[in-house]
């Protein structure tokens, strides 16, 4: 088990209202599994994603990532975990607009403490793998949506994490480009990555080994 969530819940305050995003949810995912999380807006998909991605803490319950209790990690350890074990792919790509494509891919390496020259080499290789080596001097805004998403995948993969978290990665792309991106995820699964995909799209979910459908913070 790479991910093991038992009886987790997440409550947060939003404008004075208590919002219970996740209620007593349990979920597990094996290493190498491709798992899709579906559900309507507000069902708690993104919150679940953030919890798995160590971006936020639990209100109750326990979360084991590779057998380690995430709730007991310090802030720095959480940053370390995000850096080494998890690769994020966002719907809006979340590339830094004022940095070149290459510098964007270098960022995780920077926070791992890798020196400049080696950083550029590794990032360049990763861009080659997604077929964008010729774009490395460009700014993200000069790239098409599909290219930008491939850059963000390259950034997610550059430190070779076991777990890839993708939050509606095709949401801002046309269907053809979306399909290309999904093919990349399938290839990654074949390479043995664990993939958690949050999506609205039934077609995308079909690639997954298992589908988790959320409604009002619970598994349907």
């Amino acid at each position: 088990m790479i991910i093991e969530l038992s009886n987790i819940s997440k409550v947060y305050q939003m404008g004075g209202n208590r919002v219970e995003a996740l209620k007593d949810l349990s979920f597990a995912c094996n290493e190498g599994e491709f798992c899709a999380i579906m559900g309507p807006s507000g069902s708690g998909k993104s919150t679940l994603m953030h919890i798995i991605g160590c971006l936020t803490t639990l209100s109750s319950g326990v979360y084991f990532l590779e057998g380690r209790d995430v709730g007991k990690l310090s802030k720095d350890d959480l940053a370390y975990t995000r850096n080494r074990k998890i690769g994020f792919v966002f719907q809006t790509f979340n590339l830094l607009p004022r940095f070149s494509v290459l510098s964007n891919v270098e960022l995780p390496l920077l926070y791992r403490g890798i020196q400049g020259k080696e950083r550029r080499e590794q990032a360049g290789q990763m861009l080659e793998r997604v077929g964008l080596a010729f774009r490395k001097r460009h700014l993200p805004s000069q790239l098409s949506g599909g290219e930008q998403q491939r850059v963000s995948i390259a950034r997610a993969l550059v430190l070779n994490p076991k777990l890839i978290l993708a939050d509606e990665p095709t949401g801002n792309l046309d269907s053809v480009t979306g399909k290309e991106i999904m093919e990349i995820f399938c290839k990654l699964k074949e390479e043995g990555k664990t993939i958690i995909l949050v999506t609205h799209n039934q077609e995308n979910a079909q690639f997954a080994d298992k589908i988790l459908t959320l409604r009002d913070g619970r598994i349907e």
Partner: protein
Amino acid sequence: MASHRLRTSLSILGIIIGVASVILVGSVGMSGKNAIMKELEMFGLRSLYVFSSYKEDNPIKRKERKGDPITNGDILAIPANCPKVTSVAPICWDWGSWVRHRTRFAQVRLIATTPAISRIRNELPEIGRFLTEEDLKNNRRVCVVGRDIAKKLFPKEKDPIGKEILHIGRRLPKKTRYTIVGVLKVEDTPLSSKISGMPMEENKMFVPITIFQRALNTKGVDDIVAEAILQDQGEEAAEEIKGFLEKRYKGKFCYESETMQQHIDVTNQILGTVAWIGVIAAVVSLLVGGIGIMNVMVSSVAERTREIGIRKSLGARDKDILFQFLTEASVLSIIGGAIGILIGISATLAIETISKHPSLLSREFVALAIFVSCLVGILSGLYPAIRASRLDPIDALRYE
């Protein structure tokens, strides 16, 4: 930050002005002090006064304290008994007396003395000559007057040498005619005399002490003016003379002294204070510049919230974000500081050239400016950087 070039440059400008003014104000203040010290030297840094004073607690009764506390004999005995004194001159005063030439009057400070005072106090004639030993020996009624007196009595003539003037004394009972033999040089030092409280006596009038003492039928002397062997021995030389006189009169009289050193100390203190007030004002403007940088950084953090979220999702620790923003603030202040130092140095050098006062630039203030601008950078960056580093990754990622 690049997207807000104007805003960033304006805040850097605050630092530039602050740093430049620290250097400029500091250097000019210090060099002003040096210039005035140089002026003071013209009075003769080694010169000193000794005069008798009344003390309540003098154990010797007033009846026994008859006679003069200082006499011609004492003056003659001082060089042999006080090794730290090189030359000595007696002085008798007639302050607030008048001189007249035909219908013109001028108020004067009559100083009856010997030629030695010329060297001790740097009293040099501009035209004519100073008093001589011959004048004293022969009881010549001659005088050397300040330029103001010459101007008042002889407004049209360039050269009043040889003219006769009538002195109307306050202490001296008789009106006396003197022939002008010299007019004093005016030292161009009005500022220092105002600051140190040393009056520039433009209405001085030097006459032979023999004339004065004969008129009053006395051998008494009001003050002693003397010169110490070495520059910093003014105080010690004054103590020697006081000690000698007290011993000679067995404590019958008390003496006080005044040295150039005391005036220098006071001047130093006042000018130092003035310089520091300027520096403090400049440092305040530096701090204001720092607040400008803080403002830029706070808005920059707000605008880049999403970037902070992305960086955190990629594994940036709080301290990485803190360091990033602290570095940016420091770079801003260091750029501002560097430009400010250049401007400050060039402005100081420009003033040096114009005012012809060399070596104004003070290393201490350049160092101070560098130190304060770095400090301002770190302090002004600290608050925004801490705020940035503590952002919750999710909130930051969701920020629009």
